């Protein structure tokens, strides 16, 4: 395993990561920042209390207590299991089939949902639209710099549709909670649970939506937009909750928890994903455009929490299955020359 990139000696953040500075020992400013470490625990404690209170208050009132965004990956599988078994919620599991889910992940979804005995819905947007969305997200600059430190542009496009679709179902069925499987390396501390002002969110997303509409047409609103009619009608919005942030599991512990549900590790995806066949390509695009991997932040967080060794993290980052990257480029009709290249400043 050869790593030619200059990285922090404690975590795996690399020299091209925005605003990174290394001290004389090669340790990055993100690792040195004490504040973060000391506030994390108090945030989690507060969130744990608030979330159990909310569940207590709403449980059993509606047809479903929660809609769970379920990708079939290991994190969202554990989220689903915790929602049902630990928090005793009546859940509706929801999968966005983006057209690139690994066939093995699809079998996992079927087995897990059956094992938990819960209702499930799948939404499959037009493949033509999804291909075009991924293509423009790869080639153009759609999202802001900060967003892209945590996630690749293609994953962010997909997750926008997931969130938007889940919100529509939640509103339609009066479901009080939307659960997702994000962990603390992927989202900010204060997004463990949150409620959004959708009228303002809609305004806030205007420039992104305009960019996408220019490139893809009005279908963007159908998949990623919130209509004024919905905003005007809704009295109370669902609360978004990431219950996995309250747990600390190593990858092995997660897998051990979900194996009894019939979950099998897929072999047809890269080291960072356990469900999507575009992931290797998405990472490749990000590295080509910005000079670092969209997984550096998340993996570094796991290292600092002692949930992953630096070696394991490097192994994941350096796993670049070329066959999957080529498959995606061919499927999306993207040529290497169309990708903007990162230049050292």
């Amino acid at each position: 395993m050869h790593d030619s990139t200059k990285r922090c000696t404690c975590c795996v953040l690399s020299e091209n990561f925005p605003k990174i500075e290394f001290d004389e020992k090669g340790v990055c400013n993100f690792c040195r920042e004490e504040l973060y470490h000391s506030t994390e625990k108090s945030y989690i404690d507060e969130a744990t209390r608030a979330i159990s209170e909310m569940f207590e208050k709403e449980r059993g009132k509606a047809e479903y207590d929660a809609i769970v965004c379920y990708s079939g990956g290991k994190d969202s599988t554990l989220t689903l299991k915790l929602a049902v078994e630990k928090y005793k919620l009546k859940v509706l599991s929801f999968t966005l089939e983006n057209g690139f889910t690994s066939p093995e992940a699809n079998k996992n979804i079927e087995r897990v949902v059956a094992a938990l005995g819960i209702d499930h819905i799948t939404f499959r947007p037009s493949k033509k639209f999804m291909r075009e969305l991924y293509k423009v997200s790869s080639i153009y600059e759609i999202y802001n710099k900060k967003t892209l430190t945590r996630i690749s542009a293609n994953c962010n496009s997909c997750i926008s549709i997931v969130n938007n679709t889940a919100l529509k179902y939640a509103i339609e069925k009066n479901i009080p909670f939307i659960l997702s499987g994000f962990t603390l390396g992927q989202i900010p501390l204060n997004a463990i649970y949150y409620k959004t002002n959708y009228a303002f969110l809609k305004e806030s997303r205007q420039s992104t939506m305009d960019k996408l509409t220019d490139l893809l047409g009005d279908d963007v609103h159908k998949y990623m937009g919130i209509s004024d009619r919905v905003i005007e009608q809704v009295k109370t919005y669902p609360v978004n909750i990431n219950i996995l942030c309250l747990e600390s599991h190593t990858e092995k512990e997660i897998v051990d928890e979900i194996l009894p549900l019939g979950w099998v590790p897929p072999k047809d995806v890269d080291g960072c994903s356990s469900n999507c066949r575009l992931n290797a390509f998405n990472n490749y695009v990000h590295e080509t455009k910005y000079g670092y991997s969209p997984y550096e932040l998340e993996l570094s967080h796991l290292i600092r929490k002692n949930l992953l060794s630096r070696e394991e993290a490097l192994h994941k980052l350096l796993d670049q299955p070329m066959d999957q990257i080529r498959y995606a480029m061919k499927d999306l009709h993207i040529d290497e020359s169309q990708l903007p290249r990162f230049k050292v400043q």
Partner: protein
Amino acid sequence: MKTEVLTKESIQESFLEFLCQQFLVEREDIELEKSLVDTGIIDSMGLIEISAYLQREYDIKITEEKMNRNNFGSVIKIVDFVIREKL
């Protein structure tokens, strides 16, 4: 929580420092009267981060109704909002 006397200037100064550190931008990237979202400094998750920062830093309660353009539409509006909430 800050204990010193709050002025418009001190709130704005700390807030700009927070923005630069948290959202990987430079001071000169931030236009005080313009929307932080429209200018690409923050995304929707950023609004949640800012709201959490203000609640913690100034001990105010921000419900989702208060997260609107009038209160959160620019740096100036956010600073004014904090002052109003602290009165």
